């Protein structure tokens, strides 16, 4: 469980996050949605400590993360798996080395144990046998899946995904969404997914936080977001023709 309490973030004079408060629950897929440039990525990076916050608190199971020293922060981070917008695989390493990297760095696993864990994670993301490929030889969807495998190799308690299905075809995006859902329920992780894809929202959103103008404008479940009367949320949800048609159908029923 992660609690964000009154977090603000300024870059110089530019206020990107304005007093954001929200909770992310364990064993659930928590979404942060909103259009581009509303501070979603900045919020996620504040939560994991890649950006310092200007004010406010971030609590991991009740402990304030922002006031920790560098070492304590590293310990929390070892429990975090993160999938970056561009996958961020180490391009000098093979798929296998990428996934094994956290194991090599932080565990005393023998190479046999490492191999077993890597193969298990690769199987999880449906990439068995692709051990020796380099990231440059993988398609965008494969890279994302390798990145998920790397994110879960240490059995994280927290999983962050920044736009996991941006730049992917609809079929691959659905696969990735399902993978995230499965992992969350199987490992009981506190999962936070940033997205602006309505399909994902309906597919995997247990809790939804809608970001607008740097604030947590609206929160609720996926059932609630369909029926909300909040104008900004409606503008976002029903931006596409397709969603408008669905809304028309819903109204007829």
């Amino acid at each position, binding site marked *: 469980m992660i609690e964000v309490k009154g977090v603000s973030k300024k870059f110089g004079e530019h206020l990107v996050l304005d007093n954001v408060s929200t909770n992310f629950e364990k064993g659930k897929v928590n979404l942060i949605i909103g259009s581009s440039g509303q501070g979603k990525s900045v919020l996620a990076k504040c939560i994991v400590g*890649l950006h310092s916050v200007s004010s406010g608190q971030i609590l991991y199971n009740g402990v304030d993360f922002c006031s920790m020293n560098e070492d304590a922060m590293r310990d929390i981070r070892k429990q975090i798996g993160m999938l*970056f917008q561009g996958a961020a695989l*180490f391009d000098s390493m093979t798929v296998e080395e990428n996934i094994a990297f956290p194991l090599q*760095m932080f565990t005393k696993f023998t190479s046999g144990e490492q191999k077993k864990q890597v193969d298990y994670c690769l199987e999880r993301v449906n990439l068995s046998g692709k051990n020796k490929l380099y990231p440059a030889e993988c398609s965008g969807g494969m890279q994302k899946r390798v990145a998920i495998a790397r994110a879960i190799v240490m059995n994280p308690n927290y999983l962050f995904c920044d736009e996991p299905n941006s730049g992917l075809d609809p079929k691959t995006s659905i696969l990735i969404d399902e993978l995230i859902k499965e992992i969350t329920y199987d490992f009981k992780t506190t999962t936070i997914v940033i997205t602006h894809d309505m399909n994902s929202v309906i597919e995997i959103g247990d809790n939804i936080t809608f970001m607008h103008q740097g604030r947590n404008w609206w929160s609720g479940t996926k059932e609630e977001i369909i029926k909300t009367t909040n104008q900004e949320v409606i503008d976002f949800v029903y931006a596409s023709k397709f969603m408008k048609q669905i809304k028309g159908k819903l109204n007829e029923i």
Partner: protein
Amino acid sequence: MLRIISNIGRYSGMMWLVFSKPQKFKMFWKRFLDEIQLIGIESFPIVMLMSVFMGGVISLQTAANMDLPYLPAYTIGYITRSSTILEFSPTIISLILAGKVGSNVSSEIGMMRVTEQIDALEIMGVNSLNYLVLPKITAAVVFFPLLVTFSIGLSLVGGWLALLGSGLSSTDNYVFGLRSFFKVSDIIYALSKSVVFAYLIVSISSFYGYYTKGGAIDVGRSSTKAVVNSSVAILIANFFITQMFLLK
């Protein structure tokens, strides 16, 4: 001016994180060997080429300008040796390597920054500066003296070849000159300089790479800044080291 001061502040802060104990020694060692290959071994060809020609030019210049009746014949060898050891090999070779190694280091780290690979390291709980930069600095500091020693040797051979080819001096005179008034401290001086320059090149280039913001174009920009600033740093450091050495 303010920018320079703030950069120096950030640079010092960065070095603080670079010089911490590696989180896993096995990983450090693996990275170190990779960097020896990249920074050290792959620099041999260019150093070889540069040194032979540099030595040739130095000996020819000396021979042409020192062709005076009252100077002993071994002057050419003596001056070629001294200038090679004291300045040409450590300084010129380091400037060349500032171009080759500096741009390589800064673009590699810069690319990792803009593709969020550094963020990925940090998220895993890795001290990214220590993991990425320390092996590079160590490899350079260990290997530059080797490169410079190699360069001194080859320069002197280059000088000899040039003299043979042009007939400006005999092998005996040249070798006699090379061996005259030899001081071990000169070699120590040259190698210490190369250690300082190695440190400057890699740390400054890592700094510009690490703090790259933006995209591919910015990686190129950082790389240019890295090369220019490490070259300037080498020249300034060289001035002070020479002064210290001469005043001693």
